């Protein structure tokens, strides 16, 4: 049987004002019928360009294109635009990352479906409507008839992505291309959507190319996986085999830098030896990875261009593996301990952040304007040298809390620094509490050199130091060469920029550093390196960290304590060690279960959230999580505020469930170690 999609020696070069750039080359891939091929790679690996090439919608100016792309035996590389129009949507469908921009805001969800069906099927209008309703039901949207009439802004992000999924499945295509379909969604929503796709794929038998930078997601869904680096496939084979025993040095490094749920139990550290970006212009080295490869041997690797060759169960582009060698995976450094102290440094009591002000009209009519309570009555304490992680999904108030603690957002409540009440917008607080922002592209002024960026906090907080020498020392502290001082941010890579942002925070010699999602946009190896750098800094300076993230995996490598936020409230605070076993708040349990990770040695119990979030302006009388809670125990959950339970010292859970019930929750992970099967309970 011919494969659903087949690429043979496909190469693509774009023309840019500074000369041709190699995007893809030597790509040979097959996707069998009913098969899901996962394509994983770091940012800049050209994985999205591959999807663009398959759907024949190349955004750049093509310099050269070679090879063939065949869809069920038909070569589509040379098809004219008119025939491609008939192909797209009907035979190949695509699901993009951002459903918010995929859907047209002025069309109803129903119009989207009817238009696609009308264009590609010969169905009569009434039959089209029936089919659209069927599709909406199929993707698990409640009340399809009402959904048809809604506009994209009236539904949630997860629901939008479900509609996009319905559009993709609408004309029963042979192949669906998924380009990071769950990356923009919250973990709990992404997990339900991934389940839905797996179910639909099994039912319809559609073939799919599933592109993601998140190896955990791909491990969940793909039958086979291809690893792309610098526009070439370096390793391809069955998913379990590749993730359990990566053979290519690049794949090995990639997997060694990913956190796993079992890390804390096994004392596993993260490898920080990331790959440098592959060369894109001029003469290509025989092996693209040779510049970053720890096993590079010129006498073997540089003899001729390295092509993928068949080794056991997989295709692999490595000259040494092809000769039958087994290359050892990189050794990760052991995790560093945090310099955790016993005295309280930063305390917050009853902190609330409210957005929106009473409108004039409402004030005149004596009515309250609905306000968004982003953070509600949060209290916590941060000890010297400790790392407190704030975890939650979008809209849980973690960033509002960070802004309040940075003095950027007004709030009610009390904040204390080393036992003295201090306001976050006071000079005393600013000198001791520094913030690192999420995106270094926007937190570093593009018009300033690094010397200016690092010099400003020195001028403000430590005017007595010799500035040029201190800037050089700061750059060195974050492992950047001192001559970077004259550079501008755009001359640096993403990871380097974030290091500069860290250096800027260090310049003030702070006692507390607030890290607002600082590793979210970074590749795994860079993230591992940044986390290690933070730990090193803590070890030398004794600074305490407030580490805000939505990624649970990385927590075990940076945090001492953990606070889980849901709709502005801290629903659980505990030691990081307590995360590995019950009790959990039901939301924490779902969050932990939804975060996919590549861990061949563990099984994850599935906990999925149903139901919708309450409106942000609503004052919920009961538990804020009641509408989605899988462990809902009755009317109490909806009507009265949950009590604060302390199943063990230093562990607080805001829940109606009794301590005994919370303790009786079965473990989320089953870890299989080499000698015995161990459960964590």
């Amino acid at each position, binding site marked *: 049987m011919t494969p659903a999609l087949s690429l043979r020696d496909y190469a693509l070069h774009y023309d*840019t*004002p*500074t000369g041709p*750039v190699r995007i893809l080359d030597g790509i040979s891939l097959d996707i069998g019928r009913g098969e899901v091929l996962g394509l994983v790679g770091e940012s800049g690996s050209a994985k999205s360009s591959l999807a663009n090439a398959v759907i024949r919608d190349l955004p750049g100016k093509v310099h050269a294109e070679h090879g063939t792309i065949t869809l069920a035996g038909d070569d589509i590389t040379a098809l004219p635009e008119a025939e491609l129009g008939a192909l797209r949507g009907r035979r190949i469908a695509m699901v993009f990352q951002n459903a918010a921009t995929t859907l047209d805001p002025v069309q109803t969800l129903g119009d989207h479906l009817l238009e696609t069906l009308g264009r590609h099927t010969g169905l009569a209008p009434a039959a089209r409507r029936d089919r659209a309703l069927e599709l909406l039901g199929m993707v698990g949207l409640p009340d399809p008839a009402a959904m048809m009439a809604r506009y994209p802004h009236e539904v949630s992000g997860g629901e939008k992505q479900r509609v996009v999924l319905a559009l993709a499945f609408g004309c029963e295509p042979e192949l669906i291309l998924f380009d990071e379909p769950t990356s923009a969604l919250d973990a709990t929503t992404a997990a339900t959507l991934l389940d839905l796709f797996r179910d639909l794929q099994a039912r319809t038998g559609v073939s799919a190319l599933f592109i993601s930078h998140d190896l955990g997601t791909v491990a969940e869904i793909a039958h086979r996986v291809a690893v792309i680096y610098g526009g070439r496939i370096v390793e391809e084979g069955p998913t379990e085999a590749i993730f359990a025993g990566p053979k290519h040095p690049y794949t090995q490094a990639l997997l060694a830098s990913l956190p796993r749920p079992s890390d804390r139990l096994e004392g596993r550290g993260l490898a920080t030896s990331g790959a440098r970006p592959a060369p894109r212009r001029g003469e290509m080295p025989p092996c693209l990875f040779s510049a970053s490869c720890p096993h590079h041997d010129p006498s073997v690797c540089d003899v001729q261009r390295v092509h993928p060759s068949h080794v056991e169960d997989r295709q692999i582009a490595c000259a040494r593996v092809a000769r039958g060698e087994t290359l050892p995976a990189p050794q990760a450094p052991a995790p560093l301990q945090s310099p955790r102290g016993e005295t309280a440094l930063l305390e917050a009591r009853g902190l609330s952040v409210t957005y929106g002000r009473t409108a004039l009209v409402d004030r005149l009519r004596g009515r309250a304007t609905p306000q968004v309570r982003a953070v509600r009555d949060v209290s916590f304490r941060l000890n010297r040298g400790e790392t407190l992680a704030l975890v939650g999904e979008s809209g849980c108030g973690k960033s509002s809390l960070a*802004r309040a603690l*940075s*003095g*950027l957002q007004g709030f009610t409540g009390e904040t204390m620094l080393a036992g003295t009440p201090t306001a976050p917008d006071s*000079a005393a607080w*600013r000198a001791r509490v*520094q*913030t690192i*922002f*999420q*995106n270094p592209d*926007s*937190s*570093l*002024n*593009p*018009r*300033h050199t690094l010397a200016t960026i690092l010099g*400003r*906090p020195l001028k*403000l*907080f430590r005017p007595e130091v010799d500035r040029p020498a201190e800037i050089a020392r700061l750059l060195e502290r974050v492992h950047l060469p001192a001559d970077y001082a004259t550079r501008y941010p755009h001359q640096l890579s993403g990871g380097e920029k974030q290091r500069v942002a860290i250096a*800027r925070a260090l310049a*003030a010699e702070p006692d507390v550093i607030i890290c607002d999602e600082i590793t979210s946009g970074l590749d795994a190896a860079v993230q591992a390196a940044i986390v290690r750098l933070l730990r090193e800094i803590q070890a030398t300076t004794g600074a305490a960290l407030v580490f805000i993230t939505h990624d649970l995996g990385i927590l075990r490598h940076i945090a001492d304590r953990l606070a889980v936020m849901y709709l502005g409230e801290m629903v659980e605070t505990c030691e990081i060690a307590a995360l590995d076993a019950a009790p959990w708040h039901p939301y924490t349990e779902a969050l932990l279960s939804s975060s996919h990770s590549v861990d061949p040695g563990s099984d994850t119990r599935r906990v999925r959230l149903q139901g919708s979030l309450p409106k942000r302006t609503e004052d919920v009388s009961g538990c804020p999580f009641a509408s989605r809670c899988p462990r809902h125990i009755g009317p109490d959950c909806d009507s009265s505020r949950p009590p604060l339970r302390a199943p063990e010292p230093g562990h607080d859970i805001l829940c109606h469930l009794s301590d005994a019930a919370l303790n009786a929750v079965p473990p989320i992970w089953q870890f299989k170690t080499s000698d015995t099967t161990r459960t964590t309970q």
Partner: protein
Amino acid sequence: MKTLRALLRNPQGAAGLALCALVMFAALFGPALAPKDPEAFNFGARFAGPSAEFPLGTDWYGRDLLSRILVGAQSTVLLALLATFIGTAAGALIGVVSGYLGGVVDEILMRLTDALMAIPSLLFALMILAALGSSALNAVLAIGIAFTPGMARIARSVTLQVRSFDYVAAAKARGESLAWIVGAEILPNTIAPVIVEGTIRVAFAIMTLATLSFLGLGAQPPAPEWGLMIAEARDHLFRSPWPVAVPGAAIAIVAIGFNLLGDGLRDVLNPRTGDHA
């Protein structure tokens, strides 16, 4: 330097740059280049067409038009640039401060600029001249003030985008002064669109300045200001077209030159259409 090279690769930018260079050359070295005294009468050669002696012809007093244009370039072009600079600088500052501070300050400043923008800039300039008295420098000031609200609007809209970047939040969080945040963090990042708008407005300034002179409210005779030259020559239009056509063409060249330069700069400074890798 990079901008200049990119500008030369852009056809509009290159043409605009060439025309503007020509005009600036005339403005700076005009008096030295002028072959004759711009105010010397030649009664023997009134209303002469272009000839070897008078390359662009003469006017009703027999004054050499080429010399008058070259000498007049200084007052016309430099005054227009000055007027634009005043309008751009004042507008950018108001816009950035207003956009950054937001709230009541923004509301007051923007409603004021809205009110000013409701009046056509020529009428507004006339009003200011009526209050200040007519002179070339007052005309420049009037045009500068008339341009301010429009520039403020543009600078404000760019500032609203820039303000949401974290580097502004970072500056606020470390307690920087308002002057540093506005002057060093925001202003440099809003400058590209403001410069582009400014170059386009140079052409408007020249035309408004010429109009004011035409109405007798700017430069006074016998100054060889281009607008004034047209105003004076219109009585003699049916005797000879040259005294009107030559300064008219000069104004058109400057206007087109700066417009092209503005278009070119807009393309080059825009990262999306500029030299992206």
